[in-house]
């Protein structure tokens, strides 16, 4: 019973949906304020999702029906499991050996099934979006693994999230060291690319290929994608906070205040990057990740081995 509650309500699905929805709204609100606009009201993300579940679903003629329907469902379920595992390690101190590798795999599943869903929809624009998404995925997953290697070296080769947290509670947060800062920069750009926010949104580029990968989705199926993205707005910043910025305190009030403060800072950083950059082409994204961030990551690994 308590397992079910922790899966569905706190710290699982419902809690992360509410926080993620507010996080997405904050990102939109910051964007609006950057452009001297008022911006949407705080409940906007929730109404967007609820509305989609009231609409009709259209399955395009000639599409691969099973794959088209099943990919949003698998995307959402993978993200829910990821959120549950992360939040349980973060709030309830439950963790198992190698859970960081499981999370890495679970994070690849959403992108993979968005690509498969787009390919099954038989729309040329979705095809373009899917091919772009594959290339962007190649660039950011690679850099995120480098960032994880830095973390694993810093926590003495442990693959357990609880060990990484405990290590930071003893020695102070990873962000205090030089290699930690480099890893944090890498992870920040990973969030940006994973969520498809502006410099890296070539796969869903609204002005060139309409909605790219999700162009043929409508109604509840689009709602599942949107819910998954809302959940990722909660869990990806939380993952970065857990890996890099765990505050060494035993008082729960201070802990939650520090967590929400760091969450706000990460959302703010994301929207600053979003608003001062134009959309990059796929080639530029690849160049940026492979020839700029990857050497930086190698430097970070060397610094981490030296113990800096």
């Amino acid at each position, binding site marked *: 019973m308590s397992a079910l509650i922790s899966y569905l309500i706190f710290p699982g699905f419902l809690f992360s949906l509410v926080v993620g929805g507010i996080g997405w709204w904050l990102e939109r609100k910051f964007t609006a304020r950057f452009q001297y*606009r008022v911006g949407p009201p705080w409940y906007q993300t929730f109404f967007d999702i609820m509305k989609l579940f009231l609409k009709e679903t259209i399955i395009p003629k000639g599409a691969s029906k099973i794959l088209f329907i099943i990919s949003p469902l698998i995307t959402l379920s993978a993200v829910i499991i990821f959120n549950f595992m992360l939040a349980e390690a973060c709030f309830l101190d439950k963790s198992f050996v190698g859970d960081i590798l499981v999370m890495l795999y679970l994070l690849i599943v959403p992108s993979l099934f968005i690509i498969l869903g787009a390919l099954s929809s038989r729309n040329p624009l979705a095809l373009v979006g899917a091919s772009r998404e594959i290339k962007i995925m190649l660039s950011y997953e690679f850099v995120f693994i480098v960032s994880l290697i830095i973390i694993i070296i810093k926590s003495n080769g442990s693959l357990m999230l609880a060990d990484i947290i405990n290590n930071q509670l003893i020695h102070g947060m990873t962000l205090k060291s030089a290699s930690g800062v480099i890893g944090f920069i890498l992870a920040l750009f990973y969030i940006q690319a994973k969520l498809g926010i502006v410099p890296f949104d070539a796969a869903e580029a609204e002005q060139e290929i309409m909605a790219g990968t999700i*162009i043929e989705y409508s109604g509840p199926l689009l709602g599942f994608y949107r819910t998954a993205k809302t959940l990722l707005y909660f869990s990806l910043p939380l993952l970065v906070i857990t890996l890099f910025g765990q505050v060494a305190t035993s008082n729960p009030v201070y802990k939650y205040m520090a967590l929400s403060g760091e969450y706000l800072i990460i959302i703010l950083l994301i929207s600053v990057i979003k608003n001062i950059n134009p959309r990059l082409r796929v080639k530029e994204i690849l160049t940026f990740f492979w020839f700029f961030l990857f050497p930086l990551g190698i430097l970070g690994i060397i610094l981490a081995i030296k113990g800096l």
Partner: protein
Amino acid sequence: MMGLKEKILTKSLWVFHASVGSCNNCDIEILDCLTPRFDIERFGIQLIGSIRHADVILVTGAMNKKALKRFKRVYAQAPKPCFIVAVGTCPCSMHMFKGSYSMQSPLDEIMPVDLYIPGCPPRPEAIIAGIAKLINKVTK
């Protein structure tokens, strides 16, 4: 229960913009609604690119015979419930193109139109007032 559904629907209207032979003035005025001065996103309204995500179709321009076939296909692709709004005098009443050899009839003789926003072009304030009227009409 029916009222709740409409209330949720009108809190987040995603707008698809279909130009069926307009002179582009109405299109510019629609884009003006998104600028900082008018900021229509504060009502949850977004301009989207794919017809599959549309809740409202804004039609600008006098319906000509070539565009009619395409527009019917676009409307068939939209997930229902979906509202049609005629922006500008052209889709409302054909304006000065009435009786032209290449033009069809006004929009409401072809499609069920939910709202008319006359003007050549209508001001952004008029478009926002029109959207507010649409929300009132749907929720009642």
